[in-house]
């Protein structure tokens, strides 16, 4: 069944999210809300130095403080770990990864690196005792600058002898030397450097953990504000040497993640290890400053991109050199992030097999980086979309026109890109045309003629960004070819209860996305019941033992499709029961609207409810058929899903102050069929704001000694509701042909498209003043400086 026409069904309706009442009234229970009698509180002493030898740790004074149960240094716990903290993505055979323990042993490598910890009977006592731990440090020179790191002038980790973690290449040529030749022959070419500043994910709910030993037998329950309970279970079992079947991981209500909770963190392992050691529950809640320092950061790349084009402006080659900032250690998927972008540096454009990508990733004395909303793909999209504007300026044509000339033609879908990946479906011209209409592109260009005159201090700019997102991670075989340490399947169980209520068990782990609502709609549509009759169970490995969790815009296009397939299996079984009851051949039965009917004899029918009860009593089932209506499936997608679209942003820049005012923002996204357009709009809104935040507001700033200057939300500028424009969403619908729902992911698209749209608009506004680029975030000071530099004036 494909759902291109779902106007009459449940799918496609703007149902309010069933999750929201509990979230909005504060009734939802987050990890920190759980009442856990007798829990000990963990606090972590963190290194104040970016790089320092730990000479000695004296815990005696802290241990003597009231309420303190135990104090441990990294060395004290060295025996607790069966292995170091996990990195699941060894991108190359010779990738280097320094040994990383939950508490540093011997040397601390970033400000925030755990050095010692306290267990106490209250959070207050634990916090007070932290100040009483006496650590003698020998500060060492820190490495902050990526190119300095690359030079190995100072090697951070003696153990690996270099700051280079790996170099990963993707060179694609029809014939050898084609890229070089294309640049030699190019009618136009541009070469640009972009800096992807580090970002702090800043999820609304900080991280929180509670490990609870179960009575007798050594079983352990780990509650965590995580987006990956299943992965966390496997990794915790391996790192701590706990038999996996004795570990249960639960993610209660989780307040956002954006990739920052797609990880295995020191505090999770500490809580479990110390609960095991003490026999008491151990809990920990992150403070916001700890979050800024010791939860992963996103982005952190230097990008050099070159485009070659023929005399019509059609791309003939793309060359990319990246330096990736890994931070002090490799976390769960740190090294893989640049690879996720590697396939997208040609954007939505037709490029011959003339592509040369190389990424070298280095260690620095800063917080580890890892996946952050979009992970690699926003960076890639930023580079190609900014460079396309540069190319348009070089050629002297309108940036939208240049894009149109290069769009992959709609007729060529499914399209095999030069990387060998097959883009499932797309219609870039339609999305761009809709966006241009919504923002009145031609009208804005005309207004610019009258407004952006010499001497004008309020300049209008419009920015375009078109994108493809490679998401729905992912076919397991493709992940294998990238050395990723896990598969990309998702599991689902659909169970029709005797009273025709339906339980769905999913391996996805929602933390704000509205899966309970969306999955209930899929089942309702499939089974002919009301969404209210469907309960969605998730995020507890005792209830949903199999799953690969939620990240990479995968949940609907993999997990949601798995549910649809499980529904099909249930319907097949139910059909056999109904056929038996109706004394018909199963092949002659039709199922729709929750009822089985014999084709051609409308009066011979049996509702699913009756079948469900028959399956339960098992009084009269076909020979050999097992009782109950339940089916399980594990679905491995045949392809990524490829949402696409065009975003446009209209800004006014005050050239006296450098202030950027976003006047209008238009987002046209095509994520195939929409299960619930309300949720789609919400995802787009949030994503756009997060991308706009990178463009204009946010940056994790370090001084040259490696001190994080933005350790609170007073310095790290997350925009608030009053700071963001109204966002107008538009949609085109190009169903994915690779899955039965015709769906594509939408969780990251907004973030991917918006950052370049905003910066393109700012640069467009200032192009008349000679400005060619503005670094991110385009703060007023930065914009003012860019104008001055372009005008040859003071900085």
């Amino acid at each position: 069944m494909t759902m291109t026409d779902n106007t009459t069904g449940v799918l496609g309706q703007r149902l309010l999210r069933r999750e929201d009442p509990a979230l909005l009234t504060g009734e939802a229970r987050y990890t920190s809300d759980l009442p856990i009698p007798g829990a000990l509180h963990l606090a972590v002493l963190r290194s104040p130095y970016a790089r320092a030898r730990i000479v000695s740790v004296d815990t005696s004074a802290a241990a003597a403080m009231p309420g303190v149960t135990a104090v441990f240094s990294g060395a004290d716990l060295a025996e607790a770990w069966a292995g170091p903290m996990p990195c699941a993505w060894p991108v190359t055979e010779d990738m280097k990864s320094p040994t990383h323990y939950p508490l540093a042993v011997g040397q601390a490598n970033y400000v925030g690196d755990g050095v010692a910890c306290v267990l106490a009977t209250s959070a207050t006592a634990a916090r007070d005792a932290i100040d009483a731990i006496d650590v003698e440090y020998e500060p060492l020179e820190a490495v902050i600058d990526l190119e300095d790191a690359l030079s190995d002038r100072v090697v951070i980790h003696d153990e690996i002898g270099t700051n280079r973690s790996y170099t990963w290449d993707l060179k694609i040529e029809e014939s050898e030397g084609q890229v070089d030749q294309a640049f030699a022959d190019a009618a136009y070419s541009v070469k640009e450097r972009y800096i992807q500043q580090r970002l702090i994910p800043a999820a609304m709910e900080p991280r929180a953990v509670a490990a609870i030993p179960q009575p007798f037998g050594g079983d352990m329950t780990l509650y965590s504000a995580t987006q990956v309970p299943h992965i966390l279970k496997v990794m915790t079992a391996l790192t701590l040497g706990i038999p996996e079947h004795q570990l249960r991981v639960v993610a209660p209500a989780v307040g956002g993640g954006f990739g920052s909770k797609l990880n295995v963190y020191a505090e999770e392992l500490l809580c479990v290890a110390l609960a095991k050691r003490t026999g008491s529950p151990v809990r920990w809640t992150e403070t916001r400053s700890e979050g800024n320092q010791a939860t992963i950061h996103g982005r952190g790349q230097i990008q050099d991109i070159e485009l070659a084009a023929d005399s019509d402006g059609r791309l003939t080659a793309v060359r990319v050199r990246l330096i990736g900032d890994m931070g002090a250690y490799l976390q769960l998927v740190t090294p893989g992030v640049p690879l996720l972008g590697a396939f997208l540096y040609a954007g939505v454009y037709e490029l011959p097999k003339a592509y040369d990508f190389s990424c070298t990733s280095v260690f620095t004395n800063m917080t580890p980086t890892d996946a952050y909303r979009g992970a690699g793909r926003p960076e890639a999209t930023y580079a190609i979309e900014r460079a396309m504007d540069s190319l348009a300026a070089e050629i002297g044509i309108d940036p939208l026109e240049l894009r149109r000339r290069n769009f992959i033609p709609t007729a060529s879908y499914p399209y095999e890109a030069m990387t060998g990946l097959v883009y499932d479906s797309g219609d870039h011209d339609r999305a761009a045309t809709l966006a241009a209409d919504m923002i009145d592109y031609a009208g804005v260009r005309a207004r610019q003629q009258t407004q952006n005159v010499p001497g004008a201090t309020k300049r209008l700019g419009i920015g375009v960004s078109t994108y493809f997102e490679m998401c729905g991670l992912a076919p397991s075989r493709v992940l294998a070819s990238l050395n990723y340490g896990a598969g990309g399947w998702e599991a689902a169980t659909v169970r029709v209860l005797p009273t025709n209520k339906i339980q769905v068990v999913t391996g996805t782990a929602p933390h704000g996305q509205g899966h309970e609502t969306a999955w209930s709609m899929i089942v309702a549509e499939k089974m002919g019941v009301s969404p209210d009759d469907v309960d969605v169970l998730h995020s507890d490995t005792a209830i949903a033992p199999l799953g690969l969790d939620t990240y990479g815009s995968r949940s609907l296009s993999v997990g949601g499709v798995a549910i649809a397939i499980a529904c099909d299996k249930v319907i097949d079984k139910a059909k056999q029961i109904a056929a038996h009851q109706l004394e018909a051949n199963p092949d002659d039965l039709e199922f729709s609207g929750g009822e089985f009917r014999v084709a051609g004899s409308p009066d011979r029918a049996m509702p699913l409810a009756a079948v469900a009860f028959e399956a339960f009593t098992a009084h009269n089932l076909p020979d050999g058929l097992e009782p109950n209506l339940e089916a399980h499936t594990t679905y491995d997608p045949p392809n990524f899903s490829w949402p696409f679209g065009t975003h446009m942003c209209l800004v006014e820049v005050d050239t006296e102050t450098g202030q950027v005012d976003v006047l209008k923002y238009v987002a046209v996204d095509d994520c195939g069929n929409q299960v619930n357009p309300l949720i789609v709009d919400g995802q787009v809104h949030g994503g756009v704001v997060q991308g706009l935040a990178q463009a204009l507001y946010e940056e994790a700033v370090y001084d040259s000694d490696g001190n994080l200057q933005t350790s609170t939300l007073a310095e790290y500028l997350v925009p608030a509701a009053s700071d963001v424009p109204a966002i107008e969403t538009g949609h085109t619908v190009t169903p994915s042909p690779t899955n039965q729902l015709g769906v594509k992911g939408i969780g990251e698209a907004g973030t991917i498209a918006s950052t370049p749209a905003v910066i393109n608009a700012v640069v467009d506004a200032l192009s008349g003043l000679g400005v060619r680029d503005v670094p991110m975030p385009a703060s007023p000071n930065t914009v003012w400086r860019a104008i001055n530099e372009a005008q040859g004036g003071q900085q």
Partner: protein
Amino acid sequence: MIPAAFDYVRASSAAEAIQLIGQYGDEAKFLAGGHSLVPAMKLRLAQPTVLVDIGRVSDLSYIRDGGDHIAIGALTRHMDVEKSPVLAEHVPLLAHAAGHVGDPQVRHRGTIGGSLAHADPASDLPATTLALGATYVAEGPNGTREIAAADFYQGYFTSALAPDEMLTEIRVPKMGGAGWSFQKFNRRAQDWAIVGVAAWQRGSECGVGLVNMASTPVLASSVATAVAGGASAADAAEAAAADADPQGDLNASVEYRVHLAKVLTRRALEAAAS
């Protein structure tokens, strides 16, 4: 985000508060709205051992017409300053500036006395009351004294108040229909100013206060002198940073702050004159 241990006592009058602060000595601090002090305590940047809570000294929450000036009790919340009809009529610049402090939650808790006593050069009300030529009233163990706003600010977070002195009242001269403007420049609507300018003008007489342009709020006397000498707004604004000594930070370099002060002062004078 857990402060160091402290004791807490609540005062029901100014006299009692002063007596308590004297009793506990140097390590004690007044707690008014708590919106500067408590964040600093949570980060353990401030670790007072005793808090003397004056937040419920309700007889210090008032806005009264004092003839040539308006008298504002030190415990008056920003929201009450913002919404006061008396101030709207006689000192609209101050009411308007109070409406730009933080966000509604901050304005409902924070007090004008706390804001001034805290002496943060990045805060809006110190520079605004300075521009308006306000006088502050302080009460201590030895009685009451008046301190001109121009004499009050001594450095970062340092005021002329003795540790056992409490700010009780702020007296702001009526503006007598002067034109005015408050230019607050920030990156997010709810933030402290990167640079702010509070200005009033009546003919060739004006007062200009600068936010976040030195270790104290700054009275831009050079601008006033220029205006008195007949300079245009643009020309007078060139002197905006003459009395300032700004620092660079994550949001602004020194050069940019100086530049902003000039731009915002020009805009403020133009708006005040129109």
